[in-house]
């Protein structure tokens, strides 16, 4: 291109043509990723509506000829799903309430209270986040067994207490709330103290009401973790009366044959409460994650 041509193309009124996608380029990454994530879920729903024959066929049947809604009723009656749901709900509620209380107290102490060794203690706490559960599994089992033998039977092996005890507070919960509490302006707490509020009063009357996004997020994450936990219940629970939903689903998994349609129907049913929790808490997820990312 000569200088004259270049000059004329840049003259006022001349338009520079730019090729634009009709959507954000990010969609080129996000759409395939969403597809990858959603396929297993769709497959689960499809399988839950198939017959045993269709589920075992190869190539797989993508659309069942005669969708079997009855699989859901069969799954519910084949295994004591009501008990599983009740157990999961009780464990999740106790763990959530306990996490919110204990983690908020500990998180506030780490965020605001100056005490000897607080930094070292916090580092140790953070270090525990890096230890895989498989490493601590046996010691935790022994501790829970000791509690069952020496403190209360209800806390021991084959009881719901065994599912609650190791999860009453988590290092992640303490870390998560500490980060959020650090974003609450300290002047608010000082104003409350000048107004005659105790340390605990400041936490419960000022800091916690302002930390609802973080508390809701922690509650939702704790419910999800507790509800979906499979390995720990598998280790400590053998009695069907004490089983939670994920463990109960193993009813449909035999040594020689697995009833896939009923297993998937059970899976779909176990997923519904979690979907509700996620949809309700989604707004707070964004707020709290954005908030903790800003400071701390």
């Amino acid at each position, binding site marked *: 291109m000569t200088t004259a041509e270049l000059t004329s193309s840049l003259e006022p009124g001349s338009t520079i043509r730019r090729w634009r996608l009709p959507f954000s380029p990010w969609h080129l990454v996000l759409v395939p990723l969403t597809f990858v994530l959603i396929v297993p879920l769709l497959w689960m729903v499809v399988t839950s509506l198939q017959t045993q024959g269709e589920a075992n066929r190869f190539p797989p049947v993508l659309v069942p000829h005669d969708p079997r809604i009855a699989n859901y009723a069969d799954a519910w009656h084949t295994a004591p799903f009501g008990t599983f749901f009740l157990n999961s709900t009780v464990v999740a509620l106790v763990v959530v309430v306990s996490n919110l209380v204990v983690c908020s107290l500990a998180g506030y102490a780490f965020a605001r209270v100056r005490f000897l060794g607080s930094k070292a203690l916090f580092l140790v706490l953070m270090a525990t986040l890096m230890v895989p559960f498989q490493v601590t599994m046996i010691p935790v089992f022994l501790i829970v067994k000791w509690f069952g033998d020496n403190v209360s039977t209800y806390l021991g092996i084959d009881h719901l207490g065994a599912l609650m005890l190791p999860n009453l507070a988590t290092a992640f919960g303490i870390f998560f709330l500490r980060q959020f509490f650090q974003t609450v302006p300290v002047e608010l707490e000082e104003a409350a*103290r*000048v107004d*005659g509020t105790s340390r605990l009063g400041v936490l419960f009357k000022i800091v916690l009401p302002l930390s609802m996004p973080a508390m809701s997020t922690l509650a939702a994450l704790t419910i999800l973790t507790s509800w979906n936990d499979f390995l720990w219940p598998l280790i400590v629970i053998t009695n069907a009366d004490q089983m939670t939903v994920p463990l109960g689903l193993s009813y449909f998994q035999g040594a020689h044959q697995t009833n896939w349609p009923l297993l998937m129907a059970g899976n779909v049913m176990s997923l519904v409460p979690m979907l509700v929790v996620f949809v309700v808490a989604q707004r707070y997820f964004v707020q709290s994650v954005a908030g903790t990312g800003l400071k701390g």
Partner: protein
Amino acid sequence: MAEVEFRGISRRFGDVQALHSLDLAVADGEFLILVGPSGCGKSTALRLLAGLDKPTSGEILIAGRPVTRSGPGERDIAMVFQNYALYPHMSVFQNLAYGLRQRRTPRAEVNRRVHETAVLLDIDELLDRKPRQLSGGQRQRVAMGRALVRRPQAFLLDEPLSNLDAKLRTQVRGDLKRLHREVPVTSIYVTHDQVEAMTLGDRICVMSNGEVQQIGTTDDIYNRPSNTFVAGFMGSPPMNLVPGEVRGGTVRVAGAALADLPSPDRPVTVGFRPEDLRIGGPWESRSVPARIDFCEPLGSHVLVHALVDADGTGPEGTPSNVIAQAPPGTAYDSGARVGFSVAAGKTYVFDAETGQAAPPPARDRVITA
């Protein structure tokens, strides 16, 4: 209401000594201003008084009662914070009532006092709103109301006007003065703004590097500064401070005799305020020779910036910047030669090494140009 006293209060943060043995007494109902540059220890002193921090040594008394080891809630004081610190999840009413409810005040009494305070501060229409729905000025008044409603022994105010724009600041300053007249509670007000300090306080405590430089009325601080720091900090523009000397009982700057001072010959720092300077031609006798740098017209007056070869060493010496306040319409070309003369009794002399004001004040023996 009560008197407040700091007795030898020190506060150290690691290697930094924020306060050096502060001794300060605030009378019952007095409005005391703590003023100084950033990091001078004024906010530290206020936080120690509020109980939000503990002193390294010393004692604090409120109404004669030692409170050094008491928590903030036990001191019966109220504090207005720089960013107001209104509880965002509570309405204005709840913000005002919070302190009273913490002290288990009966519900009817809470309602009565909140409404009384709201009327006094003209925020009675805002009681149902949340802080985020208020303007800066309204938030400031709610913060004041939260302090007032408790009827504490003392008010502590930590730069409460610094978040307001210039116009609103002037208005709220007047409101504060009026409010203190109507409710004369002992008040300690921290600011770095000298206009607030000089207009609001019964007395001013000027601080620097964790030490009290001078305590006195606005008149004392402005007209009888105890050292070069106070002289240079208070006043806008501040006092001109130039090197000079005492020779033969006369204070001289750049060879010009400004005042009599019966003192041994020695180098001194000479001070004069911009409004006390008169600008004349360079040929005038007994005037300080200077060269015009630039002029700043401000409508009501003109600030003339000039360079004085103050140590009299000639053009090689380091010139001192001097600001003079001249009548409106004054104009000089940059580089023009002029002579400054100082109004009678308005020359200040400070020791060149310590910066302390030279006794007796030189202004009583002034020779005018």
